[in-house]
């Protein structure tokens, strides 16, 4: 039963992440298609994106398993591995499934830059969140030390 519960929770985790990444990939494809004058994304492409997102979400749960934590250096290594994997999985997916047909080479470079910016934005958000939390923690600590 315990094994089943663990697998079930893991499955739920993968499902949430997969949903989020699929939405982002479909949105990205929709924007690029719209810029090329096409205002639809076919179901087959969405299914392919779902599959690639599942692979990435699966890898993410392996690199960052639920309930585990590491030191700063190990965390950095795992995050770097995940960033490399994001590039390999999504750029590889785009090439293998031909998600952006007829896109010129310089466009491809811009799209990759957007992907990198997206990853950097993700890290910036985490950094901002940590900074805000640190400030709050210290404010409350000072308050506690003065009060008691």
């Amino acid at each position: 039963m315990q094994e089943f519960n663990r697998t079930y929770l893991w499955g739920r985790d993968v499902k949430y992440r997969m949903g989020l990444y699929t939405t982002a990939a479909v949105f990205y494809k929709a924007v690029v298609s719209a810029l090329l004058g096409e205002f639809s994304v076919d179901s087959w492409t969405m299914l392919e994106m779902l599959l690639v997102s599942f692979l990435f979400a699966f890898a993410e749960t392996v690199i960052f398993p639920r309930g585990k934590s590491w030191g700063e250096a190990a965390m950095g290594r795992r995050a770097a591995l995940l960033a490399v994997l994001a590039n390999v999985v999504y750029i590889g997916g785009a090439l293998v499934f031909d998600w952006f047909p007829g896109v010129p080479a310089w466009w491809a470079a811009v799209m990759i830059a957007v992907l990198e910016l997206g990853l950097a934005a993700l890290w910036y958000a985490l950094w901002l969140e940590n900074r805000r939390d640190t400030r709050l923690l210290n404010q409350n600590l000072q308050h506690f030390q003065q009060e008691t």
Partner: protein
Amino acid sequence: MKITVEHGDVLENEVILRCRELDEEMLHILSLLKSGLQTLCAWTEDRQLVLLRPGEVLYAESVEERTWLYCESAVWATALTLSELEARYEALGFCRISRSMVANLHGIRRLKSCAGNRIEATMRNGERVLISRHYAPLLRERLGM
């Protein structure tokens, strides 16, 4: 060890420890007898007893079933367990921060939020201790967050 309890018409309760030398067992008993709410009885490696104010302790760590008290510039042993320290001195700011550590919140200079819901505490003496993911919510609660 032989334990004798004598009942008699005495003015004040008295405990007499009779031993050849102050060994570990005697130090534990002495420490338990002397540790009150305002003082914490501890000893050094050369078995010298000291009475510490809880405020002097930055954090306590349990290593191989022994509890160590870390002050600004010295480390002392105590007979109290981490749970006992936490329970006795909670009102004075003692808080469990990991399975093997209890920190004095007044001994923390600053806190830093880390990835994985952990918190790094820099103590007054510059030492850094990590508050585990499991105990971080407890600390946040103590700080009124």
